[in-house]
């Protein structure tokens, strides 16, 4: 996989998670007790042996730069290649003419062109799964594909919007697709990860832009689907597409199932993230914890059930947290009660406060709020 360059394009809609994406792109939203959403696709790439990754950003990328820094935590702080973050750079084209991926690729085409790798793996950043791309790459070469895209058979398609779907396939070849259809009847969700020759990618971007076409999938791929050998690779593991507070909450809660916890964090590869120092989590004589995911550095004196606690959370005596997600360094004081709540980082719920959301509409508390 040394011959494949990874490109992560932060193409998501910016405000899908309300307050949580106010100050950060979706890619750097905390997830799973100690990660950011981008960690998963980035770790997939690293575990597959990709050594050159470009992250193409759009808006509000300060938190992302702070998270990724030099790429050291992903072993991508290299002398040649490694991790590169591309801020929006639009000197000659100040207007945003193209959609998501296309705009990002177009802005940074010189960097892509210059890279030493022959192949590219272009991926979005808002879908979470654990997969070794080496298999996909082998499949790509074996099938002599022009483009290989990864998809997942899903059952419950009603909840999914702003996704791409494969609507027509013959064996492994893809014949038609739908983008952002709100009423797709297909069950083959596209994971927004494409392997192709670098030269083909540059071709697609250049020929689209010179014709004024604006969408990477609709214009770049679907319009060429008859002349290109576009192949689908089926991923059978767990997939979490984050496109709303509800999906964020549901997929977080999925981690409390042992099988999904094991798969997403261990199989086939480990997930890397920015290292933080913090002691082991302390349980006191009064603590009651059941069916929960707990990061390091917490001090738990109260009750935690069916919940996820990020690093350094304090749960004081008598406090009770149920079906909730509590992000880094939040403090839940004495006898406070949280149910179906998501708190952002460094929130403080003062003694005795009771907050309840609904299972299908969790209550979201903004960063650093004291309630």
């Amino acid at each position, binding site marked *: 996989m040394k011959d494949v360059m990874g490109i992560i394009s932060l193409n998501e809609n910016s405000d899908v998670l309300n307050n949580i994406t106010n100050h950060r792109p979706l890619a750097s939203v905390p997830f*799973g*007790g*100690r990660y950011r959403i981008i960690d998963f696709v980035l770790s997939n790439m690293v575990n597959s042996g990709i050594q050159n990754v470009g992250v193409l950003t759009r808006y509000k990328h300060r938190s992302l730069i702070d998270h990724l820094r030099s790429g050291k935590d992903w072993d991508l702080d290299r002398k040649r290649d490694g991790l590169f973050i591309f801020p929006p750079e639009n000197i000659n084209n100040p207007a945003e003419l193209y959609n998501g991926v296309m705009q990002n690729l177009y802005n940074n085409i010189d960097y892509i062109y210059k890279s030493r790798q022959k192949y590219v793996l272009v991926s979005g950043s808002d879908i979470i799964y654990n997969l070794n791309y080496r298999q996909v790459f082998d499949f790509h070469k074996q099938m002599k594909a022009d483009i290989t895209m990864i998809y997942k058979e899903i059952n419950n398609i009603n909840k999914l919007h702003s996704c791409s779907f494969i609507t027509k396939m013959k064996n492994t070849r893809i014949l038609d697709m739908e983008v952002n259809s709100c009423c797709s009847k297909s069950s083959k969700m596209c994971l927004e990860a494409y392997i192709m020759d670098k030269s083909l990618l540059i071709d697609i971007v250049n020929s689209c832009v010179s014709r004024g076409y604006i969408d990477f999938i609709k214009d770049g791929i679907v319009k060429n689907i008859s002349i290109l050998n576009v192949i689908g690779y089926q991923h059978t593991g767990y997939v979490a597409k984050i496109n709303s507070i509800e999906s964020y909450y549901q997929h977080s809660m999925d981690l*409390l199932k*042992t099988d999904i*916890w094991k798969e997403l*964090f*261990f199989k086939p590869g*480990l*997930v*890397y993230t920015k*290292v*933080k*120092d913090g*002691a*082991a*989590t*302390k*349980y*006191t*004589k*009064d*603590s*009651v*914890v*059941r*069916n*929960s*995911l*707990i*990061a*390091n*550095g917490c*001090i738990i004196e109260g009750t935690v059930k069916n919940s*996820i*606690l990020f690093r350094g959370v304090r749960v004081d005596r008598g406090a009770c947290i149920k079906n909730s997600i509590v992000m880094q360094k939040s403090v839940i004081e004495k006898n406070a009660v949280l149910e179906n709540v998501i708190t952002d980082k460094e929130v403080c719920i003062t003694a005795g406060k009771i907050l309840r959301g609904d299972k299908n509409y969790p209550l979201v508390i903004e960063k650093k709020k004291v309630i």
Partner: protein
Amino acid sequence: MKLMRKKEFVAMLLAGGQGSRLGILTKKIAKPAVPFGGKYRIIDFTLSNCYNSGIDTVGVLTQYQPLELNSYIGIGRAWDLDRKNGGVSLLPPFVREKGGEWYKGTANAIYQNVSFINQYNPKFVLILSGDHIYKMDYSKMLQFHKDKESEATIAVIEVPWKEAHRFGILIPDENGRIIEFEEKPVNPKSNYASMGVYIFNWNVLKDYLEKDENDPNSSNDFGKDIIPKMLQENVRMYAYSFRGYWKDVGTVESLWEANMDLLGEKPQLDLYDYNWPIYSVTPTQPPQFISETAEINCSLVSEGCMIFGRVEHSVLFFGVHVGKNSIVKDSIVMPSVKIGRNAVIEKCIICENAVVEDNCQIGAAACNSKGITVVGDSLRVPAGQKIPAGMVIGSEQLVKRS
């Protein structure tokens, strides 16, 4: 080719000891590399003290089984000690033109590295050992050393009188100047025990190291040779009194106790203090998974653990698995240990990668014998095995811990 700049203050950390009283815990690793407190190794405390005290030049003297320690320390990144000028240097014994010599004693180890220290041309040298658990601001001790115009300052801690005979005991006058020193006295005259933390004026120490090296009767040890000699020759020596938690974890009992000390309501050693963080190398592990059937109280549990049973008053390191209906009590469970179902572990130290199969009973619960039970690393305890308290199981063999 490297441009060295002068440093006022250089720390030398003695990390070469075997720690033979820890038995199979130090069979393959040096004592400073022994895991502690759910996510640390013993040496993390001293290295973090250095960083938090503003010391950026630390020589680590290794000798016994250094491989794991070397790769753990690396260039000191975890403790922010990977500096362009200074930082951490690993100092193993080496061969010179005239042949090689192992480190004979603590003083000889420093003597062999005089040229390393001279590079920085420091005014003061701080001598530390890598096998104590404590949080201490060395910069305050240095200030004391300067204020007193001391030439050699020894950090002391008050120990219970009845234990004083186990330590090196200092007798200071009313100004803190040391007037007498007794190594493990039968009838101690004070309860100020040396913590093994020294600050010397480098020019004074260098002299004494050379004299000591030329003395064929010397055992080349700071406590036994250098300090008594200095005292005898009227070097200005002061005792710096330290208050706070300090523990020598040189035996299985003291290591176990120091771990258990962390589990109280308000432990003296606070690991959650943002102003004095203890740094360590963090492995890649997901958050711990606490199942519906788990019960955990009065314990430290680290990332990557999966708990289905009952954990009580114990310390669990990274990636420990505790099966359904199993009980872990008053124990230290080191990284990646797997414990099956219906097992009972009481007052044990289970070393890295060991596997305890279903229905085992290990430690106090199993019979009337006493003491801490130790299971060696990577061992497999077969299903249903009962192991009485106070035993050591290393290399498939059951032996009574001496």
